């Protein structure tokens, strides 16, 4: 059968060949003239397909794609008109589709479709190519819907600290139970760099090419929810079939291209929105992200269009499943889970047989989930965990009861419903009897005093936080500038033994023995543990701290210190949070000093994006103690 098909195909393509190849110059000129008359190159649809954005300073636009082949005209990256004309000309190309190459009509399948809609190509004078590879790909994806998937924050990865979005292509023959089989379109920095420093530097300054890829959704689910332990949110989009196909055609165009990848602005969130917004001519998703794009804000860009989201589905991470499973057990059963998982009790131990079948099943399921979780995070203190997992599963399969792991309810607040990720604050206070006014701004994104809804509890990620202070005595100055401030307070218990840590770098006022307060660069870090109560209203932490300071005003130009901090966060209802802390550091090298701080911070949320803060502290520096207090109003935007 196959050779016959081949012959037929060869004949077909031969007969088609006769029609292709020669450019109908008169018709091309006609099309170009018509496109100018209709001013197609100025239309949103064309600008979006070319990823053109306005220039920052001069007038005009530039294209964001960095692979030269994406623009047909030599000046196409800066000139949408000449790009449009060159694209029209390229449609006469005689390139035959093969595994190595495609005809421009197929490479730019979305552009062809849109230009055809606008200019109504005469198939006699501009013969249409058959794009077999695109058609096969489209058929394999079988799309009838798109979903924006958001994997929540993963503080231990630089590219995912804010969470990570992807676009899922939902197929016609799938339902909610078989969504694993959908495809996922992702955008990521393309590198196998294993050096952390090089990764950070290149990521910040666009040193890596970023590219789209497409792969089965189950691979991403396994990666996020099993390996990285991140809850996943799926925002099903309300798009028509034609809108879905428009996005898919453009995804095909973007498959082979690359962009310079920048962590802060031109990142995964930005480019996925750039892909999605081709769905509708009037849909504008990327415009607001001029300086930086936070992935959770990409979800907001979608949910801000009320008609765009059809349904939101929550997919809990493996640790969430374990926690939920444990919540359904009583205390002796929980102990049994721990004992089974640590091989302190054998799977065939009679103690399981005494339990009612449902309870035994619940214990076995949760034990297995816990063993898998520990394997995924690399705990290897139990011999042969894979064998243990199989034993637990086998024992479970012999119990004739239905699955005991109930549907896990989603958190009350979705990632797009938390406070906005930038913040300004206006405050007033006193320090050692001197009154002052303060203005603060933070680029991104969340600190432990902000309301947790939509964010990971105990995870603080702040970038570029600046505080200006004006004293009544007339002095206005920079009080603090902290480019990076990360604190991870992850509660520990019998089942989860996460470490808590912090790292911060920036400039802050330090009192020197001569009574001055220079702005000193300081690099601080710490590690320790955090504990929570069962109702999740209290967090206690204890950290060992290290600190190094650098400034010419310090003796020998630096100070190196070590110490500890202890604190507790207490929630009194939804709005009010208190944070009490004690911190002491001994600087034993360079500029010697012993500093102490005792403080109480309070936050009252007045609305989702507005809050009150009242902070009081007693500090000791350079042998002198002083009191300070600030009241401020915070606005998130």
């Amino acid at each position, binding site marked *: 059968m196959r050779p016959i098909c081949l012959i037929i195909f060869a004949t077909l393509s031969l007969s088609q060949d006769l029609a292709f190849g020669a450019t109908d110059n008169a018709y091309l000129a006609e099309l170009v003239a018509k496109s100018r008359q209709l001013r197609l190159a100025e239309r949103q649809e064309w600008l979006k397909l070319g990823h053109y954005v306005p220039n920052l300073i001069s007038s005009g636009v530039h294209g964001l794609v960095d*692979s030269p*082949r994406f623009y047909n005209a030599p000046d196409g990256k800066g000139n949408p008109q000449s790009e449009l004309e060159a694209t029209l000309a390229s449609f006469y190309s005689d390139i035959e589709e093969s*595994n*190595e*190459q*495609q005809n421009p009509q197929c490479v730019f399948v979305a552009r062809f479709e849109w230009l055809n809609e606008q200019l109504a190509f005469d198939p006699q004078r501009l013969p249409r190519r058959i794009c077999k*590879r695109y058609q*096969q*790909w489209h058929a*394999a*994806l079988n799309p009838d819907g798109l979903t924006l998937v958001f994997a929540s924050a993963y503080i*231990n*990865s*630089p590219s*995912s600290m804010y969470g990570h979005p992807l676009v899922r292509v939902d197929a016609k023959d799938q339902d909610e139970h*078989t969504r*694993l*089989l959908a*495809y996922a379109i992702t955008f*990521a920095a*393309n590198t*196998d760099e*294993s*050096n*952390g*420093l090089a*990764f*950070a530097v290149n990521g*910040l300054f666009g040193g890596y090419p970023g*590219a*789209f*890829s*497409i*792969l*089965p959704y*189950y*691979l991403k689910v*396994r*990666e996020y929810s*099993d390996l990285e332990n991140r809850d996943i949110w799926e925002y099903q989009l309300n798009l028509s079939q034609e809108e879905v196909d428009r996005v898919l055609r453009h995804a095909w165009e973007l*498959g*082979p291209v*690359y962009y310079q990848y920048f962590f802060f602005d031109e990142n995964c969130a930005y480019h996925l929105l750039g892909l999605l917004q081709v769905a509708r001519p009037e849909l504008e998703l990327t415009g607001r992200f001029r300086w930086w794009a936070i992935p959770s804000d990409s979800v907001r860009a979608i949910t801000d269009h009320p008609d765009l989201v059809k349904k939101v589905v929550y997919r809990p991470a493996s640790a969430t499943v374990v926690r939920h499973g444990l919540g359904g057990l009583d205390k002796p059963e929980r102990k049994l889970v721990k004992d089974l998982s640590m091989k302190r009790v054998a799977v065939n131990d009679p103690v399981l047989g005494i339990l009612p079948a449902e309870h035994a*099943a619940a214990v076995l399921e949760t034990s*297995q*989930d816990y063993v898998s979780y520990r394997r995924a995070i690399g705990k290897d203190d139990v011999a042969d965990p*894979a*064998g243990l*997992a*199989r034993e637990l*599963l*086998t024992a*479970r*399969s012999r119990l004739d009861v239905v*699955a005991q792991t109930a549907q896990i309810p989603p958190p009350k607040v979705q990632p797009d419903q938390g406070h906005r990720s930038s913040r300004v604050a206006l405050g007033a206070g006193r320090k050692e009897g001197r009154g002052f006014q303060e203005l603060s701004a933070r680029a991104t994104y969340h600190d432990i005093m902000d309301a947790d809804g939509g964010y990971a509890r105990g995870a603080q990620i702040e970038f570029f936080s600046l505080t200006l202070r004006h004293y009544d005595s007339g002095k206005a100055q920079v009080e603090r500038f902290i*480019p*990076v401030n990360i604190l991870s307070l992850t509660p520990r218990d019998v089942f989860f033994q996460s470490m808590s840590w912090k*790292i911060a*770098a920036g400039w802050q006022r330090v009192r020197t023995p001569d009574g001055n307060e220079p702005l000193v660069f300081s*690099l601080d870090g710490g590690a320790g543990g955090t504990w929570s109560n069962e109702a999740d209203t209290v967090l206690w932490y204890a950290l060992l701290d290290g600190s190094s300071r650098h400034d010419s005003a310090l003796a020998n130009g630096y100070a190196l210190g070590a110490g500890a901090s202890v604190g507790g966060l207490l929630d009194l209802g939804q709005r009010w949070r208190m944070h009490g802390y004690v911190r002491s550091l001994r600087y034993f090298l360079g500029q010697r000093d012993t500093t102490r701080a005792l403080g109480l911070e309070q936050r009252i949320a007045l609305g989702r994006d507005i809050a009150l803060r009242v902070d009081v502290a007693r500090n000791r520096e350079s042998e002198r103690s002083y009191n300070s207090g600030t009241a401020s109003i915070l606005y998130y935007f």
Partner: protein
Amino acid sequence: MKKLIAVLSLAVAFPSAVMAAQDNVGGCGVGSMVFKGQSGVGPQVLAVTTNGISGNQTFGISSGTLGCTQDGAVRSNMKAALFIDSNREQLARDMSVGSGETLASLSHLLGVEAKDQAAFNRLAKDNMARIFTTESVATEQVIVALREVLASDATLSRYQAAL
């Protein structure tokens, strides 16, 4: 700025960068590589899709490689194998309780009709230990065992064709 970068890299850059390097195997030859490696083809497909970004290829797939995918879409004869290989743990777990989305997705790939769904789930649960004979069983053997189990059932035997 230098200091900021040092801090960033110290704090956060290591885990994912190291993981990316480990995953970067690449390639997925028909028949041979799918079943060879214990690490699974999942990571390899990931590597393929994120490899090479030169102009002619769509979604970074090299046409010269006999891959599991064509232009990023999994070849139809590879679908079930790749799925089982990438979801072994979750599949074994779903089989042990006789329900779950991984098992539902597998039965969808095998074309199990709605009227046979309950029987399929039942069969998978009863034979979980036979399908996953040991903790380190190769995917190829999982498929062979699954085929045998299906063949042993009069109504469900027709679904083994998709494996």
